[in-house]
């Protein structure tokens, strides 16, 4: 039986617990702004992240009272997570990544224009491709340009890189013949890349004269002769010329190159420093020309940079912009270039000898010059999702190139319709 004192104690405990519970759930609503803590969400790889962490520690030392928290998220998770969190009034102050989701962020009103906080003189210091403008507003400013594919080759197998598709095939065959095979599988492949993802297919499409959108920049143009020819070409590399592995996703292609079981690899600038660290004598070259068309295989290029969340309150913007300017300054960009060999965005850095004489960075810049900027419109999302299944079906032998091109177009149109309904 309860004595006289217990009920009071019970009710007090109950009140405390219930209040704590209510308070814990109150965090589910709009974010309570901590003006002295700046949060960055990014998708940087471990080596990039280590540099960012160093830079942030330096910033905290120079700016007492300000704390910067960086949170890693995988690319897809970053994109969808940022949209969902922002709509719920949560999320980071700055979001870092490639420019392609900018259209989605803008459509969902989860980022805010930057040009109102950065003067024209300041912006003029940056290369034009470092600034992502969409619907007349600046939504991203980058510290790296590129995020592009190029031909990575192992100098142990090749003295010079191929410059055309014919050379690529011939050189690959020679390497495979020279190193023999085991149970029908070459000991060293000529070439490898992630051929499950359409992003890696784009250079072949552009090499055959195709593109993902019509001139209006939003209507898909996937059912084209260029698409059919490019699909046939990629399939022939595997089934006719037999110079690429039978099955190859990103991890397999990457592992094959690291284990020196492929002489060449198509991969992005984010991966090159890792191969150098692994002790491979790496060369970077622009992707070859398609002899039939006389066009270079042009990868999509995009800047990688920071966008300002729409949830940053006016009273916090100044400190967030101050951090942004710090992260984009010359000292920090140079540190990144030296460590991971990516192309910087400040014009002043391009005059420096250490950059102009760096073969990897210079070849990377040449590839960027030959590349095509990745569209930032939300329709791009529909195009990627429409390309993937038919492309994989062609590589799996389940569809012809013609059928796949038609299916890609139909699917892209349907997805755009669904997206805008």
């Amino acid at each position, binding site marked *: 039986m309860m004595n006289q004192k217990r009920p009071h104690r019970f009710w007090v405990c109950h009140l405390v617990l219930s209040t704590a519970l209510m308070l814990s759930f109150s965090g589910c609503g709009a974010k309570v702004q901590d003006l002295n803590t700046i949060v960055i969400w990014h998708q940087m790889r471990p080596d990039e992240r280590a540099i960012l962490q160093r830079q942030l520690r330096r910033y905290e030392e120079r700016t007492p009272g300000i704390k910067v928290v960086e949170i890693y998220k995988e690319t897809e998770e970053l994109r969808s997570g940022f949209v969902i969190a922002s709509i719920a009034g949560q999320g980071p102050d700055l979001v870092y990544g490639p420019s392609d989701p900018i259209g989605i962020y803008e*459509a969902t009103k989860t980022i805010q224009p930057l040009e109102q906080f950065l003067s024209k003189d300041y912006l003029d210091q940056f290369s034009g491709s470092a600034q992502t403008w969409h619907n007349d507003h600046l939504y991203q400013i980058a510290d790296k340009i590129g995020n592009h594919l190029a031909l990575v080759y192992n100098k142990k197998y090749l003295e010079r890189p191929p410059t055309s598709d014919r050379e690529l095939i011939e050189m690959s065959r020679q390497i495979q013949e020279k190193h023999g095979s085991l149970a029908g599988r070459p000991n060293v492949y000529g070439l490898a890349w992630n051929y499950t993802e359409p992003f890696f297919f784009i250079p072949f499409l552009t090499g055959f004269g195709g593109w993902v959108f019509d001139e209006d920049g939003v209507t898909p143009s996937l059912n084209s002769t260029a698409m059919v020819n490019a699909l046939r070409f990629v399939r022939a590399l595997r089934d006719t010329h037999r110079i690429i*592995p039978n*099955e190859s*996703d990103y*991890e397999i292609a990457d592992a094959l190159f690291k284990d020196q079981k492929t002489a060449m690899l198509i991969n992005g600038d984010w991966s090159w420093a890792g191969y150098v660290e692994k002790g491979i004598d790496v060369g970077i070259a622009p992707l070859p020309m398609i002899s039939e068309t006389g066009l270079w295989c042009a990868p999509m290029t995009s800047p990688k940079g920071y966008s300002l969340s729409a949830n940053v309150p006016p009273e916090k913007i100044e400190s967030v912009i101050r951090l942004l300017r710090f992260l984009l300054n010359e000292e920090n960009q140079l540190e990144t270039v030296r460590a991971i060999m990516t192309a910087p965005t400040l014009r002043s850095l391009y005059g420096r000898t250490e950059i102009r004489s760096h073969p990897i960075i210079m070849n990377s810049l040449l590839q960027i010059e030959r590349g095509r900027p990745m569209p930032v419109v*939300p329709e791009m999302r529909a195009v990627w999702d429409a390309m993937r299944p038919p492309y994989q079906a062609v590589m799996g032998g*389940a569809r012809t190139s013609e059928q796949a091109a038609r299916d890609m177009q139909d699917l892209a149109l349907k997805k755009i319709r669904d997206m805008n309904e």
Partner: protein
Amino acid sequence: MSRQKWFIIALIAPAILVMAFVVFYPFVYNVFLAFGNMNLSRIRDWELVGFRQFIKIFTEPSQPDFYVVFLKTIIWTAANVFFHVVIGVFLALVLNQHLKGRGAFRTILILPWAIPQYIVALTWRGMFNYEYGSINLIITKYLGLPAVEWLKSPTEAFLAIILTNVWLGFPFMMVIALGALQSIPHELYEAAEIDGAKWHHKLRTITLPLIRPVMIPAITLGVIWTFNNLNIVWLVSNAGEPSDNTHILVSFVYKAAFNFYSFSHAAALSLIIFVILLTFSLFFMRKTRATESAY
């Protein structure tokens, strides 16, 4: 109201509060979303549009097709739960014997369950690689059979995710079955032996009926978990590859929501999954009389 009733209400109030926030509110919100038109272009100004999403799911062709995905989900669930139960009960029967090193065997057999699903899925994905995966190496080198294109062909890829989940799922059923076996009074077996019963008689008339009350809820849970198992499908098949041919309903929902931003479409699909699982659970529990005592 009496003091005792207030006391009871006070005790259950925090739990109800938690349930309201983490179960009822998301569920009700999901129902609203399912009848709305929230997508990328109407993410902030969505409105209720009635049954449009449901009509779209059941009548409009999609890539992949809803009915095909639904059929695959049934095959996926039935195959997995069947093998989980058969392998799990078989191993539990073995471990229930007086074996030397029983503890070590039990630990080894629980390992698949103890390893994080992400690691298991990605390891199996590597093992299924056509040229470098250990499964094809075994098939070609030791069995003399041709290599299988596990991840490139739709049927083989679907088989690959089932194999992975079978490996991952049997320890749960084994542990449950072992617990149930250990609770069966030994006297029943002794009495049966005196009556001259063979092992299969004892299995059919003592073991299986007496582990049934424990196994039925476990199977029901197994069906719900497997039906909703996103991790293995998503990671082994790399988000439905090849060509979105390895989706089950829940990965289809995930893709609709987080890749395509079709939130209302995904919410409608979730509601359909909920109705399917609720109907199954009620029917299965009633049909098997799972709540009745075995003794």
